[in-house]
C-alpha cells in the first residue's frame, strides 16, 4: 500500500496534474452553482477535455469537478433559496434564513469549511475501505460477476425511478442497448443495420452526454420562461471567509454529517439528497438547541454540507473497487475512467496500484482546491447565477457536440447523442430516471459475457449461479431489496390513496 501511495504521489504532484485538478474543481464549482446543472452533467461535459491527458491527470480533473459541483450547490441554496444540486436541498433550510438576516458570508463560510472536512474525511474512508473490498472481489468468478451486475442494476433501479418497475425498465433499456454491436462471444453482428459505426457497439460518451446533458437542455428549453429570472436579487456577499473555528465549534453536527455521508455514500443508489436529509435530521436530534434549526442555525448548514461531501468519497468505494457505480455522478465518472482506459474493479488495485492511489490523493487535493477556490472566487460564482438561460442552453449544446465529435470525429455519434438525449428527456419526464440506463450500458456486457462464459464453464448448468456463496448472497440481497422496494411502493400508494378516498 505504501508503495502505491508513493507512486501515486509522483503522479499527482506534477504541475500539469495539479493544474488539471484545480481547473476541474473551478469548472465543477461553476456548474454546481447553476441550478439544473448536476455534477453528472458537469463530468459528462468535461470528459472531452480529458481525452489527451494521462489517466491520473484526467481522472483528477473529473474528481475535482465532482468535488467542486458537490460543494458549490450551497451557493444558490444560501443566496437564492434554490438548491444548485439535489443534495443541497437541506442547505436551504438554514442557509437562506441566515442570508435573509444579512449573514450570507457567514453561511457560505460554514458551508465551505464543512464541505472541506466532509470531503477529507470521506477520502480517508475511501482509502481505508476500497482496497480490502477490492481484494475480496478478486475471488469473484463468472457467476459472481453476473450476480453482482444484477445486484447493481436492482439497487440503482430501486431508487432512481419513481417506481421500481420504471427504474428496472430504464436499466433494462441500458442492457438492451449494450447488446448492439458485435457479439462478444460468437462474433455475430446484432442490431447494427449495416451501420459501420455500430459494429463496436454504442459508444459510452455520446450516451452519457445525451442522457445527462442533452436531456437537461431539452427540459430547460421546454420550461424556458423569460419572466422567471434568477436575477431576482441574490443576497449580496463580498467575501466568504472560511469559518474553521465556528465549524469546529459545531463538532456534533460536523461528526453527524461525516458519519451520515460516509455510511450512506457506499450504499449504491442512496444519493446525496438522502445523506443530507439524514444528516440534518440526526444533527437536530443530537443538538442541544434543536429549536434553532430551520431559523438560520449554523449547525444545520454544517451537518448538511459535511454529509454532501462525505458522501462523494463513500460513493467512490463500490465504483472503484467493484466497478459498480452507486449513483448518476459516479456512473458518469466510471464511464470517464473507462474512456481513459482504466477499468475499475479489483484488478485495478492489483495491476495499476499507482493509478488507484493517485486517484485517492487527487481526490484529497481536489478538496483543498475546492476550499481555496470557493473562498477566493465567491463573488465570481455569485455572478454565474446571472448568466442568461438562453445563452447557456446554446453553450451547453456546443460543448456536447465537441465532446462527442472529439472522440473519433464520427458525425453518427452526434445522432446517437441526440437519440439518447430524447430518450433521457422522456425517461426523466415520466419518472423512469436516466442513471439506470447508463448503469445498464456499463453492466450489460459484464452480465451477458459472464453469464454465457459461466454457462460454458459449467456445461450449461445454471445451479452454480444459485449455489456459490458469494453469487447467491448478491442474488438474495437483490431479491430482498426488490421485495422491500415493492412493499414500500405499495405502502406509499396506499397512503396517497387514503386522503383521496377521504
Amino acid at each position, binding site marked *: 500500500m505504501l508503495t502505491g501511495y508513493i507512486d501515486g504521489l509522483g503522479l499527482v504532484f506534477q504541475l500539469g496534474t495539479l493544474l488539471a485538478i484545480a481547473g476541474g474543481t473551478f469548472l465543477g464549482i461553476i456548474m454546481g452553482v447553476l441550478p439544473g446543472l448536476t455534477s453528472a452533467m458537469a463530468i459528462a461535459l468535461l470528459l472531452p477535455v480529458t481525452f489527451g491527458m494521462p489517466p491520473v491527470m484526467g481522472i483528477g480533473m473529473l474528481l475535482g469537478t465532482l468535488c467542486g459541483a458537490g460543494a458549490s450547490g450551497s451557493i444558490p441554496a444560501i443566496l437564492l433559496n434554490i438548491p444548485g444540486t439535489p443534495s443541497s436541498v437541506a442547505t436551504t433550510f438554514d442557509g437562506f434564513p441566515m442570508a435573509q438576516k444579512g449573514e450570507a458570508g457567514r453561511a457560505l463560510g460554514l458551508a465551505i469549511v464543512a464541505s472541506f472536512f466532509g470531503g477529507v474525511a470521506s477520502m480517508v474512508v475511501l482509502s481505508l475501505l476500497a482496497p480490502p473490498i477490492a481484494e475480496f472481489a478478486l475471488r469473484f468468478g463468472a457467476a459472481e460477476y453476473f450476480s453482482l451486475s444484477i445486484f447493481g442494476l436492482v439497487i440503482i433501479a430501486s431508487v432512481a425511478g419513481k417506481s421500481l418497475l420504471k427504474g428496472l425498465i430504464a436499466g433494462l433499456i441500458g442492457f438492451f442497448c449494450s447488446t448492439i454491436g458485435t457479439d462478444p462471444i460468437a462474433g455475430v453482428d446484432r442490431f447494427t443495420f449495416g451501420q459501420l459505426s455500430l459494429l463496436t457497439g454504442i459508444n459510452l460518451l455520446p450516451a452519457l452526454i445525451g442522457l445527462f446533458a442533452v436531456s437537461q437542455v431539452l427540459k430547460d*428549453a421546454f420550461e424556458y420562461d423569460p419572466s422567471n429570472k434568477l436575477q431576482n436579487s441574490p443576497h449580496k456577499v463580498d467575501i466568504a471567509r472560511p469559518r474553521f473555528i465556528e465549524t469546529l465549534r459545531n463538532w456534533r453536527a460536523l461528526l453527524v454529517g461525516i458519519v451520515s455521508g460516509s455510511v450512506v455514500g457506499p450504499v449504491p443508489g442512496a444519493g446525496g439528497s438522502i445523506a443530507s436529509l439524514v444528516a440534518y435530521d440526526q444533527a437536530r436530534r443530537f443538538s442541544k438547541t434543536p429549536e434553532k434549526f430551520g431559523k438560520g442555525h449554523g449547525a444545520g448548514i454544517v451537518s448538511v454540507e459535511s454529509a454532501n461531501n462525505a458522501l462523494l468519497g463513500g460513493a467512490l468505494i463500490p465504483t472503484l473497487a467493484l466497478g459498480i457505480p452507486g449513483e448518476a455522478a459516479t456512473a458518469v465518472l466510471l464511464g470517464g475512467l473507462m474512456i481513459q482506459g482504466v477499468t475499475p474493479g479489483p484488478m485495478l488495485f492489483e495491476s495499476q496500484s499507482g493509478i488507484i492511489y493517485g486517484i485517492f490523493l487527487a481526490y484529497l487535493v481536489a478538496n483543498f482546491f475546492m476550499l481555496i477556490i470557493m473562498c477566493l472566487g465567491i463573488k465570481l460564482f455569485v455572478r454565474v447565477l446571472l448568466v442568461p438561460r438562453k445563452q447557456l442552453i446554446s453553450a451547453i449544446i456546443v460543448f456536447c457536440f465537441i465532446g462527442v465529435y472529439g472522440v473519433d470525429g464520427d458525425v453518427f455519434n452526434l445522432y446517437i447523442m441526440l437519440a439518447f438525449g430524447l430518450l433521457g428527456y422522456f425517461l426523466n419526464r415520466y419518472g423512469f430516471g436516466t442513471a439506470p440506463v447508463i448503469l445498464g450500458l456499463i453492466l450489460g456486457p459484464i452480465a451477458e459475457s459472464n453469464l454465457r462464459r459461466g454457462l460454458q464453464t459449467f456445461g450449461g448448468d445454471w445451479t452454480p449461479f444459485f449455489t456459490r456463496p458469494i453469487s447467491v448472497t448478491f442474488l438474495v440481497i437483490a431479491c430482498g431489496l426488490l421485495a422491500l422496494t415493492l412493499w414500500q411502493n405499495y405502502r406509499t400508494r396506499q397512503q396517497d390513496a387514503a386522503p383521496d378516498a377521504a
Partner: protein
Amino acid sequence: MAKDIGKPIFDLFLVVASAIGFYMATTLPAVSMAGGLSPASFPKLISGLIFVCAVPCLIRDSYEWLAARRVREGVTALNATAPKKGILQWLTIVALIIVYINSFERLGYIASTAIFCFLNVVCLVITSGEFQKLSNSRKLRNLAAYTVFAFTLSLVIYYVFTELFNIPLPD
C-alpha cells in the same frame, strides 16, 4: 398533479419497442454455443423483461390518466397555453440540433456553431414571446448582441479546443 397523456403514450411506445426488439432478436443468426446461450438469447430475455415490466406501467398510467381526465375536464383548457409554448420551444431546439448535426461537417465548425447559437437564442426569445415585448430599437440591439455572442463563442471554443486541447474539429 395534472396527469400527462404522454405517460401512457410513452409506456405504449416501450411495449411496442420491446416487442419489436424481441422480434428482431429472433431474426439473429442461430449460432449454437456450448452452454446453450446463443447471441440472440440475451437480447430476447431483456426485451421480454422490458415488455413484462412495461405492460403494468401502461395499464396503471392509463387508469391514472383517465381518472385525472374525468376530474379535470374543463380545467385543462385554461392551462393549455403554457405547455403549448413549451412544446414549441422544445420542438424548435430539437429541429435546430438536427440541422446543426447535418451542417457540422458541411459548413465547418465555426460557421455551423455560430449559426446554431444565433438561431437557437433568437428562436427561444421569439417562441417564448420575449422578443415581441421589446421596442424596435431594443430588438435590433439584442439581435446584434446575439450575433456577437454566437460568433465569439464559436471562435473562442474553436481555438481553445483545437489549439489547447488538440481536439480536431471540422474546418
